């Protein structure tokens, strides 16, 4: 894992970082100029010479919806048969009442604010998003719908991948070490449910640490150490024993 991370280079827009023929895994962030691959954003460039693949992982930027993404949205407006959600994308997302309620609605008889009012939080999944229309989200699925409890931590959407980690390693670490329920939405809103305030504080600090140090290798180990240290500081576990 370390060797993979070591081959990452910090690039800025206009910087050529590879030459030849490669498969570009992140086409929105790489431009090809005269056989050279040029980064279009500030990010970490990954070059894999074995598979001939390159990618630029951005360090800044807004959330770009993708179908099947889990998102946490805030209701910002309601129409006659739908709600508008802020999902931190350049566009607001639409949640249809038919979808949310599971039955047709008659706007003449029903007021949608009875179910979701402006300011409410919704856990949803992106259903469709194309260039002609804004994103449409759905609440059909296990655990989706109105959020009634928990705390939301907001981080930059481009750093979500690091909070999840390779094959979910960081996510497992956060849940395992703190005993909290952590739900990482793709738009950078993390919903957490903790057994007590102390553990919540530790978890929030750990998440913010991940956001701040996302580009520095060896993150998982540092976060693990950090959580244990903070727990000891708060008397949640003994000096040498580790709560597993």
């Amino acid at each position, binding site marked *: 894992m370390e060797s993979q991370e070591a081959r990452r280079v*910090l690039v800025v*827009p206009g910087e050529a970082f590879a030459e030849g023929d490669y498969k570009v895994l992140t086409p*929105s962030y790489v431009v090809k*100029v005269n056989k050279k691959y040029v980064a279009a954003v500030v990010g970490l460039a990954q070059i894999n010479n074995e598979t001939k693949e390159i990618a630029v992982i951005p360090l*800044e930027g807004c959330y770009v919806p993708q179908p099947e993404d889990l998102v946490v949205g805030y209701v910002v407006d309601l129409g006659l048969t739908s709600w508008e959600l802020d999902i931190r994308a*350049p*566009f607001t997302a639409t949640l249809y009442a038919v979808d949310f309620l599971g039955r047709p609605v008659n706007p003449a008889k029903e007021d949608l604010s009875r179910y979701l009012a402006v300011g409410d939080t919704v856990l949803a999944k992106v259903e469709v998003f194309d260039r002609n229309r804004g994103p449409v989200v759905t609440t059909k699925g296990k655990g989706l719908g109105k959020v009634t409890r928990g705390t939301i931590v907001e981080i930059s959407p481009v750093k979500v991948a690091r909070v999840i980690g390779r094959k979910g390693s960081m996510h497992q670490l956060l849940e395992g070490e703190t005993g909290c329920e952590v739900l990482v939405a793709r738009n950078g809103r993390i919903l957490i449910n903790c057994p007590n305030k102390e553990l919540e504080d530790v978890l929030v600090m750990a998440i913010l640490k991940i956001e*701040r140090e996302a580009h520095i290798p060896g993150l998982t180990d540092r976060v693990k150490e950090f959580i244990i240290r903070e727990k000891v500081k708060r008397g949640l576990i003994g000096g040498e024993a580790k709560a597993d």
Partner: protein
Amino acid sequence: MERPRLIREDGLRHDGRKYDELRPVRITVGALNKASGSALVEYGGTKVLAAVYGPREIPQKHLLLPDRAIIRCRYHMLSFSTHERKSPALTRREVELSKVIREALEPVVMSETFPRTAIDIFIEVINADGGTRTAAVTAASLALADAGVPMRDLVVGVAVGKIDGVLLLDVDELEDMFGEADMPVAVAPSLGLITLLQLNGVLTREEFDAALKLALKGAAQIYEKSREALRDKYMKVRVEE
């Protein structure tokens, strides 16, 4: 005001610079918290702050384009940025500069990534000492990069002036006021694009060629500093122990 001696007897300029020397360039990326991206750029006494918001949806839907994002740019000088108080209202000059700065950035911004949205750039001149439009271009392009807006290259601006028949790089306010010509240039060095070229005054063809060469040389130096400043934002993050 009486015309001061702009080129000293020892051949240096009034502030001690050589003919092809830039003023000290200082760049801070991410100077603001609330904006999507921001940058503070100083060319000597000139100090310009740029903030970028978006890409975002805007209430004025009629302005939006179906295939790409629109870029809106406002260049503004703060009332205390000049010797005499400047009215805070946008002047004809500021409206024009907003347009030319926007057009200097449009060729590099990959606006097709975000159709039906707007990218807003706000530029405030905090202190004006010549070359505000070129510093503004540099600041705006860095703020865009800081906001994570995909760009083909960074754009940097620099001006060349002619004083007493000599071409000088990065003219300040005094040199601009008494000079014979002033030529602001904005360049995207990696792409080899010139996105802004204005000329105030008269240059011969030979002088123009030499002036452009001088501007490209200065731009290359500022470009290097800009890239460094963007990287610095991340390199300076230290692991907490």
